[in-house]
């Protein structure tokens, strides 16, 4: 009898282990960048291609960096949440357009000249924002995804909360839901704004 008790106990432990393990989100990889200064970059601004923006320009402000691309399906799902956010708060939301042309997969990059890629990327990004609304204070263009690598981007969309000192305080991978925004990001923003 005692023996069956052991087997049953081991089985129950296995069930609990699997229930917890399978319930976790494998995409939820903790970012080592949280608590570290936001990696520097200097990228052209979508609206004013001759000007660049770098995180230093945002010093002294609490801001959000949202990684997006027009080919990214989840970004479309997330977009209304961002538009709503930009209407409700005056926290600057900066867009980081990630590999607008290269990431699409529909182009033969071997045949495309850099100038052509740049032109097409700006055109596509602008068109997307015209169609779906522009929640961003401004968007910067990361054509080859190098800045994305510095930020550890692996699944668009991703969102970073950056504090007044330029330190990343939170990273969210995947589309922002209204719940994540209201329960996690808004309280954090309120705290950081103090």
């Amino acid at each position, binding site marked *: 009898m005692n023996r069956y008790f052991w087997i049953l106990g081991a089985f129950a432990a296995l069930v609990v282990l699997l229930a917890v393990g399978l319930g976790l989100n494998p995409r939820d990889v903790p970012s*080592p960048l949280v608590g570290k200064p936001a990696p520097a970059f200097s990228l052209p601004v979508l609206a004013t291609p001759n000007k660049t923006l770098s995180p230093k320009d945002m010093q002294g402000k609490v801001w959000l960096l949202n990684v997006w691309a027009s080919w990214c399906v989840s970004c479309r799902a997330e977009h209304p949440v961002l538009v709503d956010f930009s209407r409700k708060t005056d926290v600057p939301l900066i867009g980081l357009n990630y*590999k607008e042309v290269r990431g699409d997969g529909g182009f033969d990059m071997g045949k495309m000249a850099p100038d052509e890629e740049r032109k097409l990327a700006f055109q596509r990004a602008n068109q997307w924002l015209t169609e779906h609304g522009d929640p961003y204070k401004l968007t910067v263009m990361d054509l080859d995804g190098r800045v994305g690598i510095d930020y550890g981007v*692996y699944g668009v969309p991703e969102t970073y909360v950056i504090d007044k000192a330029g330190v990343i305080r939170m990273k969210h991978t995947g589309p922002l839901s209204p719940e994540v925004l209201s329960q996690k990001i808004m309280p954090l923003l309120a705290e950081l704004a103090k």
Partner: protein
Amino acid sequence: MKSLLTLIFALFLTSTAAIAVDSATEAALAADPVAEKRLQKLSEELRCLVCQNQTIADSNAELAQDLRREVRAMIKAGKSDKEIVDFMVVRYGDFVLYRPPVKGITLLLWGGPVLLMLLGLFALVRYLRRRSTRIDAEEQPLSAAEAGRADALLKENNLK
């Protein structure tokens, strides 16, 4: 049936050919075989975060291609293997390593299998010991009291 087999074989051939062309273009990018070997070795140590059970050597995901490109650029720039791996860990965390480092949080991961094996060995030894004492007990001759009781029972039966 035969035509079906031919079809499958043809499909197989074309698919492998496609893969071969793809890797050929990548190989062409790095003419230096030594650097290419290092790239291959490093890529096999790094996890692709998009398809999490593949290394960036195996994966053809966009991100894996970008990361291979970064590794290649760093090799060209004369960076050491450690510097390259650190570059990845700073950005993507320990998760990017296929062999996670031994530290507090990964102790169970590394020690777990050993622990389970010790537990199994312990259970096995205990079971074997118990079994042998049981067998020993069974093989022992009857004690005087037991023999007396057995005799009594036999006699009782004879009387009936």
